């Protein structure tokens, strides 16, 4: 295990950003950290990178507390939208700084990506557009070849083509140089394919951690006549409930039905459908399973 957290909490004044979080992250796997805005993703990653101090609980990266650990610093790179770099250095000089600091730095890769995305080596980092800055930060993150590589919302501002390139580059480099990668996003759809594990946060707490390939089977949707649906779901946790049409009900719930139960549901006229990973994550991470429609239905 590269990362281990035990009852980890983080408070900012009276705000609770992380609340009693216990999980671990597998070595040499790509883990996706997913959750709505404000779920605590960035706070968690900053604690792992040694930027922030924990308030309570235990956090270990490579077996050490990350805050002020040189071992963690030397083997970790943390890339996010606010990456701080000297305003005086050109982007080519920043790559040189990367070469100076990171033992596994691959300058050839850095140069090839630099050329592919047609960067002007003399440009200053602060003068890059939002999308270009994200792209440059990504180059830094990949070329460092850190044992623990953390990307926090890495594709902010990138256009669709560059996003695709980024995830392709990330996977290719990972296949050639397997390492522990944590990547956070609120767009699961984008990262789902390349993930091995998913850690889902909601309001500072762990909602779910499972293998990414299991996510599409984790839940199912049930649609049909309201009374019928209600009978079938009695006693089960419902992630999402939507009324529509003439007394029709659509629910999303844990896929724990046996084949016989499923057959019975179909025979009774209920529709059973797969729930996409993305939709499921939205349902799982929304507050109390509410949807936007609840704002408008005040009955």
């Amino acid at each position: 295990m590269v990362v281990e957290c035990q009852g980890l909490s983080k408070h900012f004044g009276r705000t609770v950003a992380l609340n009693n979080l216990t999980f671990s992250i597998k070595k040499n796997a790509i883990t996706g950290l997913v959750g709505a805005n404000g779920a605590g993703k960035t706070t968690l990653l900053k604690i792992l990178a040694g930027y922030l101090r924990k308030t309570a609980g235990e956090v270990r990266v490579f077996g050490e507390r990350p805050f002020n650990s040189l071992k963690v610093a030397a083997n970790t790179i943390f890339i996010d939208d606010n990456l701080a770099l000297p305003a005086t250095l050109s982007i080519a000089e920043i790559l040189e700084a990367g070469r100076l600091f990171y033992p596994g730095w691959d300058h050839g890769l850095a140069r090839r990506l630099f050329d592919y995305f047609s960067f002007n080596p003399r440009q200053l980092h602060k003068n890059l557009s939002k999308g270009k800055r994200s792209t440059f930060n990504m180059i830094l993150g990949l070329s460092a070849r850190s044992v623990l590589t953390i990307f926090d919302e890495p594709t902010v501002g990138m256009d669709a083509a560059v996003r695709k390139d980024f995830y392709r580059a990330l996977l290719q480099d990972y296949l050639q140089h397997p390492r522990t990668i944590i990547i956070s996003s609120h767009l699961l759809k984008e990262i789902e394919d390349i993930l091995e594990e998913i850690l889902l946060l909601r309001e500072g707490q762990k909602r779910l951690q499972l293998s990414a390939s299991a996510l599409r089977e984790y839940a199912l949707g049930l649609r049909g006549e309201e009374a019928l649906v209600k009978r079938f779901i009695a006693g089960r946790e419902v992630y999402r409930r939507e009324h529509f049409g003439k007394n029709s009900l659509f629910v999303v719930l844990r896929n724990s039905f046996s084949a016989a139960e499923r057959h019975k549901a179909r025979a009774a006229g209920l529709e059973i459908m797969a729930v996409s990973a993305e939709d499921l994550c939205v349902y799982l991470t929304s507050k109390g399973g509410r949807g936007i429609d609840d704002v408008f239905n005040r009955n």
Partner: protein
Amino acid sequence: MVIFATDHGKPIYLQLAEWLEKEILSGNIAADERIYSQYQLAEMFNINPATAARGLNILVDEEILYKKRGLGMFLSPGAVAMIKKRRRKQNLERLVRELVEEARLLNISRAELGELIRGAHRGEKGEKQ
């Protein structure tokens, strides 16, 4: 990821297993030939290698593939027959069941349904000519 356009929402490793079966059925891989590694598949389909491994392992569990320690996975000699047999049981029989149910809902007689199937066969042959 969607390997087949109709597979939206289906687990990737299942899609991958089906794609591999299709490759095997179409004769692209000979008996006892080495099949793609999880890393090759990961690169081909832009998916995590662990997901690719899960797809491969389905075929290993069904003995369509066999493992050689340190060498990779190879196609079992009886693979094509096994896939055909299972697909017939799983896919074809399910589809027929659904077809019959739908026909019943639409009040289509057995004779009419048989005619539709024969028509579909003819249409397919017609396209081939």
